[in-house]
């Protein structure tokens, strides 16, 4: 198929429609407004429904309702808007419903600004909502990967009955790249026998609920969730490793930052410093073992995490590396994109120039 030039936000919306998403509920916020704009035009054409809700809280609860009836449903927002959706996300996780939530991150905290950022890593991977729950977190670095991962996010959500977060940033939302439309790998998806979509007098009522008033019942539900999260951790970890096979330094970066880190790797090579780039594609589950293995190589002197935040993923990197090598951090907060030169400079101070 011929390549087409797509803007990130529009590719995300089109990918969802290709994946069979029929419902979108959201509230406008820059830098992701082209997502609802695209859905508002195109969902009615495929027999779906777009609603611009009165608030983010209303939107996520509409997602809860549509997911509970077994529909493929999505919402999107950017950082402060995603904060407002956290209550709904923990309800959806507890009720074990499939839904896709896209966050085109912007500078924070607070209202912050509209520039690209990665400072919602904790919120996405730790759960900004209450209770012991997890969301699968997918982090695309290109428009092609965004288009691929959004389609697959719906399958992952359906397969595990779990919310899936696609975590990107304003740059990926706003930029255009050439992409090819392709289908995700086929998964055998279970029937949605749990959906509250009408009994037609043929079965008992299905009840969608996140209230387990009896502590014993709630404990059972927590155990069940834990088993599911273990299965996801076993099956869904994804990462990309590139660069030198015997690196002195391992760079760890995801999404937009991984592209800048790759440019830095090339400059490092010119300086005679061997570097590899470890790019987590799933932020949860985090590719812990693979990163540990990379850090363990005898050539590696240090691991350097680069983020558009003041230091969030670096915690997961430290857990993965588990003290076997020093872990350093370079980050830019508040919506600033690091330059390759800044990254190179940091690495030269860590491993020494030549």
């Amino acid at each position, binding site marked *: 198929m011929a*390549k087409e*030039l797509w803007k990130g936000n529009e590719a995300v919306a089109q990918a969802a429609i290709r994946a069979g998403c029929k419902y979108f509920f959201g509230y406008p916020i820059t*830098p992701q407004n082209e997502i609802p704009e695209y859905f508002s035009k195109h969902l009615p054409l495929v027999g779906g429904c777009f609603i611009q809700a009165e608030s983010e809280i209303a939107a996520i609860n509409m997602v809860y309702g549509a997911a509970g009836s077994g529909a493929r449903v999505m919402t999107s927002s950017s950082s402060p808007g995603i904060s407002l959706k956290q209550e709904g996300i923990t309800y959806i996780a507890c009720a074990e419903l499939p839904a896709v939530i896209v966050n085109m991150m912007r500078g924070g905290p607070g209202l912050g600004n509209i520039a690209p950022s990665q400072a919602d890593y904790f919120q996405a991977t730790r759960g900004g909502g209450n209770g012991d729950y997890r969301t699968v977190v997918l982090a695309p670095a290109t428009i092609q990967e965004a288009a691929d991962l959004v389609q697959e996010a719906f399958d992952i959500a359906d397969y595990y009955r779990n919310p899936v977060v696609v975590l990107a940033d304003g740059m990926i939302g*706003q*930029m*255009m*790249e*050439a992409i090819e439309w392709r289908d995700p790998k086929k998964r055998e998806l279970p029937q949605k026998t749990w959906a509250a979509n009408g009994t037609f007098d043929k079965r008992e009522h299905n009840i969608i609920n996140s209230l387990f008033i009896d502590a014993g019942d709630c404990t059972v539900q927590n155990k069940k969730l834990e088993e599911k999260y273990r299965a996801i951790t076993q099956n869904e970890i994804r990462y990309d490793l590139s660069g030198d096979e015997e690196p002195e330094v391992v760079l760890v970066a995801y999404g937009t930052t991984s592209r800048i880190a790759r440019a830095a790797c090339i400059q490092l090579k010119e300086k005679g410093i061997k570097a590899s780039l470890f790019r987590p594609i799933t932020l949860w589950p985090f590719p812990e073992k693979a990163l540990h293995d990379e850090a363990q190589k005898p050539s590696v002197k240090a691991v350097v995490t680069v983020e558009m935040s003041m230091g969030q993923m670096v915690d997961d990197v430290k857990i993965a590396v588990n003290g076997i090598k020093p872990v350093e951090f370079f980050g830019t907060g508040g919506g600033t994109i690091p*330059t390759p030169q800044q990254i190179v400079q940091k690495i030269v101070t860590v491993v020494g120039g030549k």
Partner: protein
Amino acid sequence: MTHEIIISGFGGQGVMAIGKSIAEAGMKEGMDVSWLPSYGPEMRGGTANCSVVLSHNPIISPLVQNPTELIAMNKPSLIKFEPAVTAGGLILVNSSIIEIKTTRTDVTSAYIPCLEIATELGNLKVANMVMLGAYIEATKVVSVETIREMLVHMFTGPKAALVELNIEALRRGAACIK
């Protein structure tokens, strides 16, 4: 070769469209392309710019720090980005509204009176196409034929007449390049 281009001007001058046209034409000619707009507060203040990368190799980062080519549609853009252009690079200046000259001696500069030419062609909206024509002539990065195919696809029905107007604008822009 990798072309890293910054196109900058006032909102409404068609700088995003110039960038998209270059990116799309590059894609159709088999190159790897990226287009990154400014969308921040500077855009709300009246100036807008976009970064376009075209390469025969996979594009690593879509951010352009040091453009190989700068298209300045207004004066603030020229002042802001001129120092960043790589040595041996190209600066195209919309001389209709930019009265100053470039100060760099290590780059090639060309001055394109986009508005005057567009006025002669009877449609001010093609001023950005005049600039695009100059850019293509100066760099040969894509062929005018590819742009024509895109225009034919874009302007259909009652708008089909705009194809030739735009092609003429490209031609007149190209003629400004010696």
